[in-house]
């Protein structure tokens, strides 16, 4: 040893480089060794795991029925992990009957208790993994543990709890989420929360109404978007008050939910929302009017075809094409508006939906149009444009045929 250190001393300033060189060579050897050892270990591990997985799959019925005693594998970490993975995967794809059977197995084998324990006692990524696994079981007894995790200091844990509760997909889980939201406000990014609420509240959307009335921004916005996603006809008049709400998000949510309500009421409200000053409210209103596909929706849709926002123009055109009757007259009115953007939007939507030939036939066979109007309409349809002299023809025809318009 003495001679090595003496050797270094004799090297002078180069000693540093020699030492660094030795460290670098050592690091290379260590890295190589680690890669080789890890590869060998993993190869053995996966071979063993695959073999055990096959055995477990083969004995699955006995395992779940308890014919093979639960204690025989519960204490073996290796087996436990495989069985947990298999049962959670099977639960995801299971029908109601199979899910009940698997849940019974989870309870009997006390796997669910293990997951609840891990969700409560572990920390960091292990806790997060347990929370999501607990959600995948859809066992109601997991809800309290998930609700506790909503109050965790770590954002990742809160998000995992939200995902877990979302996976539960039951109103009880939804209630926990909503109570927590009203209690602490919006402390997580909105999108994962909305997704979870959509899952949980779609069975009973009415549960959102109370929160929607009492919550403050931005929680109210989040709930409104969820409502927009899952509203059902039964909500009917409950949604109408939101048409005049001061928050644009809520008006948009109402617009989105309204097609599920009574037709006449919905069209009136949506017509109003189609003139909203906020673009995304108008967009939602137009899409909803398209869903209703009723002839009384034509005037607001034709108005929106001239909207300054191109997305709204395009969606209006798509919506107007969903109305199956009187497309020739509608096209005539589009032309009469003398707005090239509106015409382009209509022609685009027509091409996209492949309805061009049908409209050509309809115009050609229409009794109410003069040959000149027909020719102008067909030319406009073909070229996607209308020459100035033809505008007037169509405008005149428009007045002449106003009565025949739907």
């Amino acid at each position, binding site marked *: 040893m003495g001679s090595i250190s003496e050797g270094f001393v004799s090297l002078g300033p*180069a000693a540093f480089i020699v030492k660094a060189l030795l460290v670098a060579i050592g690091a290379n050897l260590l*890295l190589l060794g680690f890669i080789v050892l890890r590869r060998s270990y993993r190869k053995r591990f996966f071979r063993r795991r695959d073999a055990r997985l096959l055995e477990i799959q083969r004995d699955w019925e006995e395992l779940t029925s308890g014919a093979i005693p639960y204690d025989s594998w519960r204490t073996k970490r290796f087996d436990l992990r495989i069985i947990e993975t298999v049962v959670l995967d099977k639960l995801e794809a299971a029908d109601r009957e199979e899910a009940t059977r698997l849940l019974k197995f989870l309870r009997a084998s006390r796997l669910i208790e293990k997951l609840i324990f891990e969700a409560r006692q572990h920390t960091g*990524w292990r806790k*997060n993994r347990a929370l999501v696994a607990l959600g995948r079981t859809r066992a109601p007894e997991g809800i309290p543990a998930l609700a506790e995790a909503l109050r965790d200091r770590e954002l990742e844990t809160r998000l995992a709890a939200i995902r877990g509760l979302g996976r539960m997909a039951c109103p009880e889980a939804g209630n926990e989420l909503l109570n927590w939201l009203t209690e602490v406000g919006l402390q997580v990014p909105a999108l994962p929360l909305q*997704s979870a609420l959509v899952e949980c509240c779609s069975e009973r959307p009415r549960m959102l109404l109370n929160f929607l009335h009492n919550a403050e921004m931005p929680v109210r916005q989040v709930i409104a978007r969820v409502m927009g*996603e899952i509203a059902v006809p039964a909500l009917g008049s409950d949604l109408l008050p939101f048409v005049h709400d001061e928050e644009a998000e809520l008006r948009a949510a109402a617009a989105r939910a309204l097609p599920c309500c009574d037709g006449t009421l919905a069209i009136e409200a949506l017509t109003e929302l189609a003139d909203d000053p906020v673009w995304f409210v108008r967009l939602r209103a137009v899409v909803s009017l398209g869903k209703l596909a009723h002839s009384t929706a034509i005037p607001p849709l034709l108005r929106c075809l001239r909207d300054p926002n191109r997305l709204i123009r395009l969606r209006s055109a798509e919506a107007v094409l969903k109305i199956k009757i009187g497309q020739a007259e509608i096209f005539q009115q589009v032309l009469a508006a003398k707005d090239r953007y509106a015409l382009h939007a209509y022609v*685009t939507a027509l091409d996209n939906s492949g309805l061009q030939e049908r409209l050509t036939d309809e115009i050609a066979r229409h009794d109410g149009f003069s040959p000149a109007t027909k020719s102008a309409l067909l030319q406009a349809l073909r070229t996607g444009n209308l020459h100035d002299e033809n505008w007037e023809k169509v405008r005149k025809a428009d007045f002449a045929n106003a009565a025949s318009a739907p």
Partner: protein
Amino acid sequence: MIARLLAISNQTLLYYYLLCNLSYLLMLFIAFRTSIAHHRKLQSFRLAWIKEAPLSPPISIIVPAHNEEKSICISVLNLLKLQYPELELIVVNDGSTDATLAALRERFRLRPIRAVYVSQIQSAPVRRIYRSETHPGLMVLDKDSAGSKSDAINAGVNAATCPYICVVDADSVLEDDALLRIMVPVLADPDRVVCVGGIVRVVNGSAIRNGRIERIRLPRKSIEIIQVIEYLRAFLVAREAWASANMLMIVSGAFGVFKTDLVRQLGGYRPHAIGEDFELVVRLHRYLLDKREKYRIAFLPDPVCWTEAPSDLKSLGRQRSRWQKGLLDGLWRHRQMLFRARYGRTGCLALPYLWFFELLAPLIESLGIASIIAAACVGILNRDFFVQFLLFGYAFATAISIGSVLQEELTYRRYNDWRDVARLLLYCFLEHFPYRQIQIYWRLQGMWQYLRGDNTWKTIKRTGLENPHAQPSPEGKASAPFMANQ
């Protein structure tokens, strides 16, 4: 006097080299940490849930294509099969002179439509728009060529209707779940995450059938294997590390997701930018920092895009020269950001790093070599010290390369065959000579070309994704994997 100057120069080189390597080492450690954390985070994520979620935002995939007849159909097929709830695929035929459009028309039964196309961002005129009869989500824009990829992407951005755009190269294929994976940070925090980059890997040597990767293997040629190591080092080490501190300065043009509105607000990709992907990301940083907004530009190592790497020296040289030009162009254009407190760590750390350890590296290294030779001639070079230093440099650089292979081994393990890993490790030892010195020459050449104003697009020989026959195609990628050159 000369001897003194040479001594100072050699000493400066030594410190530069040490600093450079220490920064790589630091990045390697950060990357290990981040990567393991990400891997663990994924355990509490179920990608299938994203696929089912009604609120997952739709994505417009934009594929700029110029003379890509050999690979375009495979690439489009691959993209149509991606797992994601709502997708719109926009292929931009950028004035191809080969049969790119004809191949698309035949394979996907395209019919012309008169879609509304508003040129919100400036781009060359669009001649015609097509939609597929067999795949309604596929739209093809046939436009005049403006001689740049940026222009083609901008046309795609104009046509996009989804809140997010994903730009993918026409000679690349994505793994089935790549979009689900790349959207993980967006879904977790859509307000702050403005852009996410995925990893780009070398597809040469792997088998692709019907737009799907069937078997992943390491390429055969040395030049391709060295590029595999470079890509691993650049993506799994450098980008991972920079992104962990929100200082990622490049999202690969071959695969990245951006907020559509933001790209439009920025005026799209800069026309005629040489490294358009790098320039856009620097501009994003600048714009958002100017507005003092909270944002995040993320990188994920698990959404994988497989791309074809050049397989001959001439093509590789052209690509590397171009990357260097792109880097110089982008950095020079945003030089006002340097050391300005307003731009925080981006201006004070990330950009200076790129200037000194990426852009100027070939210049400093070649000066260093020259000064060592001069010192030897003058007789002031301590030969023992020099040899030891050379060996240390070699061993250190090898350790970083092995570290990036280890990073791949610890996390994503795409190369399953023992022989592939053994060859990869072998090339970690072989890549330093003479490849590295040749690369210095290419990069210097790129800088010289830029200074002369020679920004022409030179062809790179490509074999096609499934086709073994070589065919020339213009260089489409400008995603310099910084730190590839260490």
